[in-house]
């Protein structure tokens, strides 16, 4: 296989910056001890430890470019969740977390394979890392991004996605001259033209929807790489 590096042991991340762009999103930038360089698309595991040694761990895609001195994650708060509300409500600059990563060697894009990415909601996060990397290295024409969410407010990195040139497909509000709708086949066809690979990230329902429209756009299943978040319906 490829030589994509994987972090083999737990390390420490110190929160250096934290931002709450909306009531539902928290962006955390960590300084990571003994950091293993990542490839865009990989994720970290964050582990929280209670006084009685109970632990909870969750995976978070890396949003930052590998060149960024800090590792950035963007977390969407799930109601009644255990870890995401903690990160949104309690985490502060200076806190230390147990981290493990980078993890994943499959859902990575760091080469010149022309690709199309389709993300739903917080599923856009790994694509932000890919976009930042692609822009820095000047290979951005090879990476096309479609980002879908109910509303602008629910879409992490919406400004950055727009300035990259991503197609922003909002389902519950009109966006510039695009009428509120799910991603429709013609939108995908235009962007999938020439793509040899597709990456899809989001909820289970979103992933199967995106898989179908990619199929209609001529991308065969074996060229689709998937990352799913969250509980099933």
């Amino acid at each position: 296989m490829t030589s994509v590096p994987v972090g083999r042991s737990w390390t420490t991340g110190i929160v250096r910056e934290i931002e709450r762009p909306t009531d539902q999103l928290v962006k955390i930038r960590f300084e990571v001890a003994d950091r293993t360089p990542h490839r865009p698309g990989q994720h970290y595991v964050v582990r929280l430890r209670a006084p009685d040694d109970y632990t909870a761990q969750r995976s978070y895609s890396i949003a930052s470019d590998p060149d960024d001195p800090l590792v950035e994650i963007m977390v969407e708060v799930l109601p009644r969740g255990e870890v995401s509300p903690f990160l949104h409500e309690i985490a502060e600059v200076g806190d230390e977390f147990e981290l493990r990563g980078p993890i994943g060697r499959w859902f990575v894009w760091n080469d010149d394979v022309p690709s199309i990415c389709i993300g739903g909601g917080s599923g856009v996060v790994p694509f932000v890392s890919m976009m930042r990397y692609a822009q820095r290295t000047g290979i951005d024409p090879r990476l096309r991004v479609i980002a879908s969410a109910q509303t602008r407010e629910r879409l992490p990195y919406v400004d950055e996605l727009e300035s990259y040139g991503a197609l922003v497909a909002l389902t519950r509000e009109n966006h510039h001259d695009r009428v509120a709708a799910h991603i429709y086949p013609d939108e995908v066809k235009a962007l999938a033209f020439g793509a040899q690979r597709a990456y899809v990230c989001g909820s289970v329902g979103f992933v199967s929807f995106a898989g179908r429209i990619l199929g209609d756009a001529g991308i065969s299943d074996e060229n689709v790489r998937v990352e799913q978040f969250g509980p099933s319906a």
Partner: protein
Amino acid sequence: MGVTRGFTGRERKGADERLPPGQYDTGSSWPVLTAELAPHIDLTTWELAIGGLVEQPTNWTWDELRALPASSYNGDIHCVTTWSKFDTHFGGVSLDTLLEVARPKPEATHIVATATTGYTTNLPIDDVLDGKSWIVWEFDGKPLAQEHGGPVRMLVPHLYFWKSTKWITRIDFLDHDEPGFWERNGYHDRGDPWLEQRYQGDA
């Protein structure tokens, strides 16, 4: 490493002794995680091949499999993404039944299970023989849903669930260990939830 400031964890009703370290009870939900799109499988042409180091390479059709003595699993399952699901009921056939025909050779030490999608995972044979693994098509008395590997998947409930290959289509016996899809991508070669064998490098 020390305690996370301000973190107490979700309210716990005493430590459930059925919960391996680092896992939580997902209750009635059943999360889905795959690396590929869920394939549509046609049972009229589907086959399960058992090959590699066996005396009798065999191909089972769906009807042949259904004609074998049924076997079920009632118990817990554990996913590396930290959920566990208690008291599940799966119906299918014990892998032992299929291996009575195929008869693994003495030099076989490991298997690689393969899905129609190309997904693979490796297991030591000690983890699949003697009532430890199944080929299943029923969950809670109903046909196994496509997103959970239906119509047919493997079930190795004492290991993390990525070892329970969805949409299984072949099992090969080998005389060595050969990392599969997630194992090459950083996950553990064995995956015992009680030992927290999540990633390569874990004990």
